[in-house]
């Protein structure tokens, strides 16, 4: 559903260190497993060919890096709102997430700061797990405002 005239979401004043973000739960259905290589344009066989995955030592096909990027980015912007800009995203994959798993992504506000260039930045610590335990860790910076940032983009000065 599209919400016209969207609320801008989180304000800078509303950011609280230690706040937990609402969890994001996403089952890795066969449809999602089958469609994600096309949606990410990633035809590496570990993501669609179970025999290849077995030869890699994996029990089944597993979701790719870009899918997980999408999960992390959705988690933080679902919480903060679409007026925020993801300025940095760090992610480490500790173990793979397989078809049939259900992932749960969670986040907590670690810090808020105003940079030397007066950008307002919130850092979120992220964890993604399945029933088998922690699978992915991440760290994302969300920023307000964006226009100032765009104007000092390298090459755009």
């Amino acid at each position: 559903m599209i919400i016209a005239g969207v609320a801008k979401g989180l304000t800078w004043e509303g950011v609280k260190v230690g706040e937990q973000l609402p969890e994001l739960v996403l089952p890795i259905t066969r449809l999602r497993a089958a469609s994600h290589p096309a949606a990410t344009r990633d035809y590496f066989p570990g993501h669609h060919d179970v025999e290849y995955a077995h030869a890699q030592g994996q029990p089944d096909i597993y979701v790719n890096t870009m899918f997980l990027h999408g999960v992390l980015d959705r988690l933080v912007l679902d919480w903060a709102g679409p007026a925020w800009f993801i300025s940095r995203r760090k992610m480490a994959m500790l173990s793979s997430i397989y078809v049939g798993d259900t992932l749960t992504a969670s986040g907590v506000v670690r810090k808020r700061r105003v940079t030397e260039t007066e950008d307002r930045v919130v850092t979120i610590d992220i964890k993604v797990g399945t029933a088998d335990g922690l699978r992915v860790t991440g760290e994302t910076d969300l920023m307000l405002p964006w226009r100032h940032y765009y104007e000092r983009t390298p090459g755009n000065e």
Partner: protein
Amino acid sequence: MSEPTLVKGTYEEALKMVGHSTDVRFADVPIELGLIRAFTAMTEDANPTYWHKPTASELWDGLVAPPGLLTCLFMPMPWRPDGAVDRTVLGALVPLPGSTTINVSGEFTFFRPLRVGDWLNVVETVNSISPEKTTRLGVGHFVTTTAIYRDGEGGIVAEGISTMFRFDPAEAA
């Protein structure tokens, strides 16, 4: 799709590629609505700046793409009339013994939103290659590469640093 081609070689040969940069490589296609729809449907991402032009125009002066679409733009298509481009990422072109790869970690910095119509290009550089390591998956080397993503005017849109593991599996599952 068959197994992707990996350049085979020794660790000593691989080390000679540290500091090597690729030529400028353009994405197959510009950022367009179909790519955004497929990506956001995959993650069930209802962010209106990806879906709803009036909202996107109000907040970002036009429709934007999820940041995660960035690296997807540079993946090779499995077929094309002039022949499939048989490569994945720079780490696959580093000569190493490992017979397969898996991504391990990455950090991306974004300088502006990805916009519908952006036709981006990338230059990748081999940063470092670890000595032989043994992990749960097998024995191999960690390859770290950096990437700089620019728009058609040369402005830097994003930068990334990624680490992959080039390895021989310990035992087939």
